[in-house]
């Protein structure tokens, strides 16, 4: 099963956290070597982004930062895993690293499976 992990947080990280990045890189490396992680990416700050919206049947383009946004997407990853249990175990391990290295931080790692592709 293919899963997407989307990490969101109400507050951006205070700054780069080398210890956290190192710990994440270790898992990342392990997961690539285990053949489970197939893609990932971190996103630049929301101020550099844009939103194309539909409201009142009209298109509009809004440049970041988006004042009303409560949660900001920081990054994503795509994994090929056996089942949801495995996906949740992986997310817990990933989030535990955040707790270990940035106890003040709050955020969510959302785990979503792709529509079923019978052989992927």
């Amino acid at each position, binding site marked *: 099963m293919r899963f997407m992990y989307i990490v969101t947080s109400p507050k951006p990280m205070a700054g780069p956290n080398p210890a956290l990045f190192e710990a994440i890189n270790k898992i990342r490396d392990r997961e690539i*070597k285990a053949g489970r992680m197939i893609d990932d990416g971190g996103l630049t700050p929301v101020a550099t982004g844009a939103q194309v919206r539909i409201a009142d049947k009209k298109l509009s383009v809004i440049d970041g930062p988006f004042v009303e946004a409560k949660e900001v997407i920081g990054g994503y990853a795509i994994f090929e895993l056996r089942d949801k249990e495995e996906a949740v175990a992986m997310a817990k391990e990933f989030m535990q690293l955040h707790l270990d290295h940035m106890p003040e931080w709050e955020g969510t790692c959302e785990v979503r499976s792709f529509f079923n592709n019978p052989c992927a």
Partner: protein
Amino acid sequence: MSTAEIHRSILAVWRIEQPRLITSLSRMLRDVPLAEDLTQEALVAALEHWPATGVPERPGAWLLATARRRAFDHLRRGKMLARKHEAIARDLVWEQQAMPDLESALDDDIGDELLRLIFTACHPLLSRDARAALALKMICGLTTEEIARAFLISEATVAQRIVRAKRTLSESGLTYETPRGDELAKRLASVLDVVYLVFNEGYTAARGDEWHRPQLCNEALRLGRMLTAIAPQEPEVHGLLALMELNASRGAARTDAQGNPVLLMDQNRALWDRLQITRGLRSLVRVHELGGGGGFYALQAEIVACHTRASGPDDTDWQAIIRFYDALLARVASPVIALNRAVAVGMAEGPVAALEIVDGLKAEPALEHYHLLPAVRGDLLFKLGRHREARAAFELAANLAGNMREREVLKGRAAEADSAAPA
């Protein structure tokens, strides 16, 4: 959470951690079968403790500590019997130094260890079936029951296969290391062969009620991705992964809503998985960068790549496909490959030329019971308007097909040919 749910989540953690446990113990004990036994004991311990205590914050560290404790116990027992007291004392000092080092053990680069483990599980001393079972158990973390279900064989058969394979490994006195030089090529071929066997068992299920069994495809893909990460300099590793990714990318289009097979030329290509195609083509680029374009798996991947680059049969580069088949046949004289080449010839030059090739293959002993020979023949005869002969060929193919879904499709084609034939 029900007990079953807790067990599922424990098994999920286990599968994530298992490769590291077994490589870590293999390095300590220099004995892969024993390392496997002891890591299984760590799983049993987790299944006993975690339902009551909850899954620990660092389940990997818990499992590794438990497994290593068992390994130390084992070493100590062995040494008590065999060695003098001072040796034991020395080992205990070493053990005390080694035990707190769990975190760094977790940080080790396991790539080389994993490669060593894969080479051991897929050793040419073992039968292909045994290699497949052992690789799925020791590297993918499948249980005996899961392997049995995947291969449609009994659990007892799998268990026996694994026990025997482990005994063979133990008794052979194999060294636990990565082969080098000429040996490497031979051993790598043995590994790739097993991975492809697992993939094909899932992709074109030869037996059973389902046309394909995705779990085996996924485990093989995982092994393939693992190998490209830990043996990145080997072109055939990338070739095999390219072949598997590109084939698997068609997964969603290969069956209709009822689970019946849809042949390549009839597939809705919008359902092909672009991410997987991209990955497959990227692996193929890597093959060429490493100078491995002529490899057995690379050539097959090239053929599939021709299909993925086309929007349909009409703009498929059939001449290129024929050339790749020629190159493949120059490497391996296989009548199955010759039959596939005939299909491409049929698309490029028409059914007459293809039928000539197929009829030339009828005498091949290897194809005597191969359902796809009469299936291809039936298709060509149908295109030539020889409907009665087509019907007979499809009926023969249906009788030879081991997979129920495939048999039904072939019976359908026989009926189609029958109604097209003049009364």
